[in-house]
């Protein structure tokens, strides 16, 4: 549902440019994960975050638990960055349960 809202829903970037994706949470969550789903459907783990910031190469992600949002920054976009980016909130119940956002479809063009 709308427990995890992602924006934008789709994005087209020129190779070499920068952008930011965002997730807003309406549920309490202690951790956030970001994934990239490639066109063949495989999910790649990008970040696992407690409140704070992590950086990996051209990607940087922040999770602000007080304001209930997370961002994923992409620097110097490359063609291979194309795919669907999902954020997921850990919604603790009896075990771990991830609530996924609706995704951002990113297309990087030469």
């Amino acid at each position, binding site marked *: 549902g709308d427990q995890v809202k992602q924006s934008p829903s789709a994005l087209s970037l020129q190779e070499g440019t920068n952008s930011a994706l965002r997730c807003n949470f309406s549920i309490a969550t*202690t951790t956030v994960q970001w994934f990239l789903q490639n066109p063949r459907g495989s*999910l790649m783990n990008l970040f696992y975050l407690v409140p704070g910031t992590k950086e990996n190469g051209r990607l940087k992600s922040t999770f602000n638990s007080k304001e209930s949002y997370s961002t994923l920054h992409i620097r110097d976009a490359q063609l291979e960055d194309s795919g669907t980016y999902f954020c997921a909130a850990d919604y*603790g119940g009896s075990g771990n349960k991830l609530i996924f956002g609706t995704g951002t479809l990113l297309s990087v063009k030469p």
Partner: protein
Amino acid sequence: GPKVLQIPSHQIIDMGQMVTLNCDPVSNHLYFYWYKQILGQQMEFLVNFYNGKVMEKSKLFKDQFSVERPDGSYFTLKIQPTALEDSAVYFCASSFPGQGALEVFFGKGTRLTVV
């Protein structure tokens, strides 16, 4: 990163028949999950499983669904009988228990087509 293996990658089955989807979780992981993704949509939680028991299941986990992991074998999702609306990609996932929340790793999915 850690690998979750799913077998088969594709399965076509006649409506009403039984299907079993197999998952080989990461070797030292103890929490197991199934998620469902209909084409072009978000991933939706079905069920999680720990210490031989279902811990939590969603409304999507119908009575026709069951999960198990007999000792030393695959973690399985069985659907009996299948329905047309069960067509989707089913992702298995696993995580290692520890303090607080847990990083979850996903397999490549099994695309199930019910005809």
